[in-house]
């Protein structure tokens, strides 16, 4: 069991800044996120799109913001637990126990939920029968390329992931690329490569069409697609790969006994605590009168929540409000050398 002062759920910008605000108060944190890297929506949804409303930062991309936050929290050497979703939260006296999808257990007096709109999960195929083939012959990501050798693979999607895997897997398998419209969205070089392989008949491209049926018993044998002009076609298929991006799902959070308002968690505005003492919600996932879903609001929320976290984690110490500019204690925690040394 991992012991810490605050378990932070979500490593988006607000979760990352929580590490900072708690860190300068001398609190240890562990960060859990279902994605494979830090940044949350900033990295997953708009890494290259500009943001214009971060104070004192006239313009930065989602990626730049994330990288700067990561740099800002390096002194605190916090542990990140990626590709893990928090499944269970239980109480043990005045502490909280958190269990993840990878069976890791954490214990802390505080939990800070900075979960955005929930955890990111791949968007599944619309067709109901796809479900029973999932993990056997329907996949939403490629983790082991070896499984996709010498197969008949139908790839759905029109973005970078679909195009990149079509290129890669066409080296060892028969690939059909299927998309709902004629245009693909990808790097010009990749698009040119795909067109070249299509001419050499190494990749088959089907547009504009959508999946209408999957045939087979235990394994997929064929699929049926329907073109815009109502024409149908059967394609021999062993494996379906589908790349329709990620969606956000609130998931187990709804079952932790917290007061919810639609898909958000109700909190107080003096310390962003939920109805459960020691569980805080910050950033897009929390709600209160006047709430704005802005990154800067999340930064304010973690600053205030971290004070209450301190009081709960260090009940015998007095909280002292200090400025980073002048506090020797904070500067030590930030690993800075004292000027008069």
């Amino acid at each position: 069991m991992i012991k810490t002062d605050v378990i932070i759920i979500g490593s988006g910008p607000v979760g990352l800044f929580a590490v900072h605000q708690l860190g300068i108060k001398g609190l240890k944190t562990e960060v859990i996120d279902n994605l494979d890297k830090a940044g949350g929506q900033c990295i997953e949804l708009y890494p290259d799109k500009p943001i214009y409303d971060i104070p004192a930062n006239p313009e930065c991309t989602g990626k730049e913001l994330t990288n700067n936050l990561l740099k800002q929290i390096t002194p605190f050497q916090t542990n990140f637990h990626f590709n893990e979703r928090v499944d269970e939260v239980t109480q043990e006296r005045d502490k909280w126990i958190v269990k993840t999808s990878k069976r890791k257990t954490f214990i802390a007096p505080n939990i800070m939920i900075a979960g955005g709109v929930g955890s990111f999960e791949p968007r599944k195929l619309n067709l109901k029968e796809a479900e029973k083939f999932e993990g056997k012959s329907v996949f939403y990501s490629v983790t082991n390329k070896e499984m996709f050798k010498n197969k008949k693979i139908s790839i759905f999607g029109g973005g970078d992931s679909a195009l990149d895997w079509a290129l890669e897997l066409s080296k060892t398998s028969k690939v059909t690329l299927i998309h709902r419209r004629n245009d693909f969205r990808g790097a010009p070089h990749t698009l040119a490569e795909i067109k070249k392989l299509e001419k050499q008949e190494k990749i088959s491209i089907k547009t504009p069409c959508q999946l209408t049926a999957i045939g087979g018993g235990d394994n997929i044998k064929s699929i049926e697609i329907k073109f815009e002009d109502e024409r149908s076609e059967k394609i021999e298929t062993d494996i379906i790969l589908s790349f329709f991006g990620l969606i956000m799902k609130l998931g187990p959070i709804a079952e932790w006994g917290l007061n919810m308002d639609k898909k958000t968690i109700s909190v107080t505005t003096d310390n962003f605590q939920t109805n459960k003492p020691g569980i805080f919600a910050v950033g897009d996932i929390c709600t209160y009168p006047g709430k704005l879903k802005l990154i800067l609001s999340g930064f304010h929320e973690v600053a205030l929540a971290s004070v209450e976290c301190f009081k709960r984690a260090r009940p015998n110490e007095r909280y002292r409000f200090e400025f980073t500019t002048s506090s020797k204690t904070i500067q030590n925690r930030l690993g800075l050398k004292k000027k008069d040394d």
Partner: protein
Amino acid sequence: MPKITFIDSSKNTKTIDVESGLSVMEGAIQNNITGIDADCGGSMACATCHVYVEEKWFDKIPKAEDSEIDMIDMAYEPKKNSRLSCQIIISDDLEGLTVTTPEKQS
């Protein structure tokens, strides 16, 4: 204020007044229209405010930008008349606009 009508996949209709200048998505959220999730809050990053625009209106509203069309690829059961409702800005010209929400958003 222009009136906007939402039809859900079971053909239930609800008409709301939306202030000009707001998006159809914002109008829907303020009026608790079920079937519009708008997870990303209007940053055109999630395709969960996806609607089908009635044919006669489809050509009247400004065309979708490339980035919106790319995002619609990710939507649940996109069709030719699919739009993201966060990108349709209400004006007096859109009085009576009717959109249908998909069976689900994700």
